[in-house]
């Protein structure tokens, strides 16, 4: 590293403008000068940067041991989950299997489509044929033909 680049790099380092690669180059250069015993020739700013970078290098070696444990099995949780699932399946099955009510005849539900069709046809045929004139009482009240 030439004598002009170092002060420029140090200026950028203190302004927080250096890239990681430049910081590594700076650290490496300062460490080499320290090993060569020429660190005393550095400016105070250079020595300060060398110390900061050396600290970072040392701190990077700090390690920790952690112990990971698998979560213990909880049988009651499995039992509750199974019971809830079974209840949900039963509820869905009951809902789907419930017979369709097409209508009511004298209060009795009609669940057969064929029976419902027959009842409906009877009702409309009565009205059409006039066998049972269901509008007669109304016409009497309203006094119309």
């Amino acid at each position, binding site marked *: 590293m030439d004598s002009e680049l170092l002060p420029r790099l140090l200026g950028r380092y203190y302004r927080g403008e250096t890239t*990681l690669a430049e910081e590594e180059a700076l650290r490496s250069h300062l460490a080499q000068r320290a090993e060569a015993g020429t660190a005393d020739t550095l400016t105070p*700013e250079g*020595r300060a*940067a060398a*110390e*900061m970078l050396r*600290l*970072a290098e040392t701190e990077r070696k*700090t390690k*920790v041991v952690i112990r990971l444990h698998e979560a213990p099995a909880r049988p009651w949780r499995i039992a509750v989950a199974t019971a809830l699932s079974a209840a949900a399946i039963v509820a869905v099955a009951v809902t789907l299997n419930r017979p369709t009510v097409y209508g009511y005849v004298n209060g009795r539900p009609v669940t057969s489509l064929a029976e419902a069709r027959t009842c409906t046809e009877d009702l409309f045929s009565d009205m059409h044929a006039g066998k049972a004139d269901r509008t007669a009482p109304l016409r009497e009240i309203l006094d119309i033909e």
Partner: protein
Amino acid sequence: MNSEDFNREFIAAKDSAYRYAITLLHDRHAAEDAVQDLYEKLWRRRILIRATGFRPLVMTSMRNMCLDRLRSQRRGGMRLDIAAADKRTSVAEYDAVENVELHTLVRRLVEALPQREREVMHLRDMEGMDIEQIAGITGSTEQSVRMALSRARCRVREGLLNIMNHGL
């Protein structure tokens, strides 16, 4: 990412998380506990986090956990080690420890930085993260991170120059 890659990243990030926790909590034992707790939680949820970048996630989670612990300590009225960080270390104090290595003094100067500056300096210098990542973890802008980093380095430099001028 396959299972082996995940395990490698998982283990590699733990030391970074530990160092970061020390910086935030100022207490090695509390930092160990925090890393242990965080890793227990992450290990249980490992299936959900396989697809995402693991290291930023660990660092962000570590930061949140440490800040939560600091807040709960503050609510509990316990004395905070972190309070010591705001105290400016005087030159006279350093004069009294002339035998201490410069290296230790730099560490003390870094520990005496305000929390935000110390945190940014740690993520940059110790963990080698780029400015964008640090901004993401600390929830700030890149410009703000650069300013904090610059202030931190200048403060440490001034502290060291003071010490050097006093003949250490």
